[in-house]
């Protein structure tokens, strides 16, 4: 045939055929009977086309099952399991569909955007749909646009492995040491926190739970072993696993130059602060992570001086002393007690 059937239409005809077949269809019946497969120039080409289409359908959630016809060993038949095919009716209001459309834009990963867009198409098909129900109901979430940073190539294979309960192997660069090592992990959860994506699971070498930042996974994630290789704990405490988020809230007391460090003041108990000595304001800021706040405050240089608590002050001073040595020790000996203006 000179004109090729478009792939979408060939797939459509295959689905209709396998849904309607009274028992099952053999490959030969597909090749000779289903529109589009006659295009294949050879038995090999047909074989490849059919295998690829079957994979595509299964990936879309279409349950193509094999039926052993019995008797002749070659006679494997195919059909679609209609019970497993069906999505229960989902009657969503226009506002609810609007919310879903927004959720579909949430992911920045291409693979996941394709997944959510497809899910949206399926859900739109499952409604009874009052006439004229466009998705005008988005007012409810007007102007809201939550989304997460792309999780990278490791995400989809890890998600599949979590669902299949399969062990994964990958190369990982540890941030604290820079060590690059192969890890074997039972994957439990994927979590997005504070701008980063993490895998939480059990490290098989350490025999203990660990978390891994996905951006530090190098190369590809390989799935090993069989499905159902482990049982994840019933409850995974993501925030406990990503330690360093201890809950205790403390108050930093800061001496801030007037009108400056606006971003710090914005979080303060009282943004304007109280006058300290005519030259600085006392600004009190709640915090949980000492390291994160010390990093931020060191960045302000002499605009912000930490008065307390002492451990925060020491952490900032330590950072400043390291910074003071950045130009090769022009004043390497300087410290907080004998500050020299540079």
């Amino acid at each position, binding site marked *: 045939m000179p004109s090729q059937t478009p792939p*979408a239409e060939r797939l459509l005809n295959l689905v209709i055929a396998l849904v309607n077949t009274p028992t099952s269809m053999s490959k030969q019946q597909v090749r000779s009977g289903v529109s589009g497969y006659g295009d294949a120039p050879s038995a090999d080409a047909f074989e490849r086309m059919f295998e690829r289409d079957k994979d595509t359908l299964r990936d879309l959630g279409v349950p193509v099952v094999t039926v052993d016809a019995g008797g002749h060993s070659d006679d494997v038949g195919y059909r679609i399991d209609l019970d497993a095919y069906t999505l229960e*009716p989902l009657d969503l209001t226009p506002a609810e569909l609007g919310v879903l459309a927004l959720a579909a834009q949430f992911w920045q990963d291409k693979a996941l955007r394709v997944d959510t867009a497809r899910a949206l198409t399926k859900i739109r098909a499952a409604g009874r749909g009052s006439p004229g129900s466009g998705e005008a109901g988005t007012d409810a979430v007007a102007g809201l646009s939550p*989304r997460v940073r792309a999780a990278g190539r490791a995400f989809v294979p890890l998600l599949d492995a979590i669902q299949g309960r399969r062990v994964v192997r990958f190369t990982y660069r540890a941030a604290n040491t820079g060590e690059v090592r192969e890890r074997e992990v039972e994957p439990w959860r994927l979590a997005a926190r504070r701008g980063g994506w993490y895998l939480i699971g059990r490290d098989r070498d350490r025999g203990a739970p660990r978390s891994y930042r996905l951006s530090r996974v190098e190369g590809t994630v390989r799935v090993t072993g069989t499905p159902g290789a482990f049982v994840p704990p019933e409850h995974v405490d993501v925030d406990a696993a990503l330690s360093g988020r201890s809950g205790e809230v403390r108050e930093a007391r800061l001496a801030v130059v007037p009108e400056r460090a606006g971003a710090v003041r914005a979080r303060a108990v009282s943004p304007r602060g109280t006058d300290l000595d005519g030259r600085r304001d006392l600004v009190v800021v709640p915090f949980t992570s000492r390291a994160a706040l010390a990093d931020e405050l060191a960045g302000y240089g*002499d605009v912000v001086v930490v008065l307390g608590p002492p451990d925060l002050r020491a952490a900032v001073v330590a950072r*400043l002393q390291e910074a*003071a040595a950045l130009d090769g020790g022009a*004043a390497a000996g300087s410290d907080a007690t004998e500050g020299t203006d540079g």
Partner: protein
Amino acid sequence: MAERADERLVRLLGIVAFLDAAGAVTVDDLATRFGVTPQQVLEDVDALWVSGTPGYWPDDLIDFDAASLERGVVRLTEARGMTRPLRLGTREAVALLAALRAMRATVAVSGDVSARALDAVLAKLTDATGEAAAAVDVELTLDGAPQVLATVRDALARGRRLRIRYVTASDVATQREVDPLRLVTQDEHTYLLAWCYRAQDQRTFRLDRVLEAEVVDVPVATHRAVRDVVDFVPDPSGELVRLVLDAPARRVAEEVPVDSVRNLDDGTFEVVLRVADTVWLRHLLLQVAGHVRHVEPAWAAVDAAESARAALAAYARLTPDADPASGGAGA
């Protein structure tokens, strides 16, 4: 046509199942529902019309009422058994549910009616897909002062202009009037996309740097399409800076927009970035100074070191011991 075959297949199947339940639907409504053009709907109908079961005689084919299609209404007369909507794949369900949960958490803080729609969708979808969604856990942080957030949400909902006081990354505070366009929660920050009358252009404001916000009783003007950009784009005219850092400073490679990252054999790594704002670079160097092995150009290291020495001098003057008295007087 660039559309993937699998995406089109899902829509083709979806249109049949939807029409089977919904009855007659206009081409335009169908297009809106499936998020495609009316032209695409007509092409889809044409493709469905010639599809069916092997044999492909007229009775084997999916069929539509031709007369109503003339009037722009699609009415299915034969579905060939394709009446059921296709279930969600596990990954699809997980991706959608995780997104909805994250949105729910975002909306809850500002407590408005959209929470109801979200709850309803979540309940219906969870019922339809089972427990798989636990695999992914997304938590978004809505930062910014609560009253600022509430004011911005209010202005967005009512389409009103805002007056804000904003402090830049270089610690310069300014007063601006803006037309709010969108509130984007991404990663660890919330951003307000807005038309800025001061800049006469669209600007992105980090919500935790908005010091004050008040609604101005002026309806927002119509602006050209929103550029949905949150990620900081390095100024191409900025100076090239090269840093070699110890492994614990990895977050610089992960969170700062860098041109390139190169892992070195001794466990350190090199980043190259473009810097238009020397104050910003000074802030960065002061924060990671303990892990800096090398800085190019050299003036950047000198600048940061001088700033650090000035800061240490300020620390020497302002001892914590002197504080209780003045702090007490102020409080």
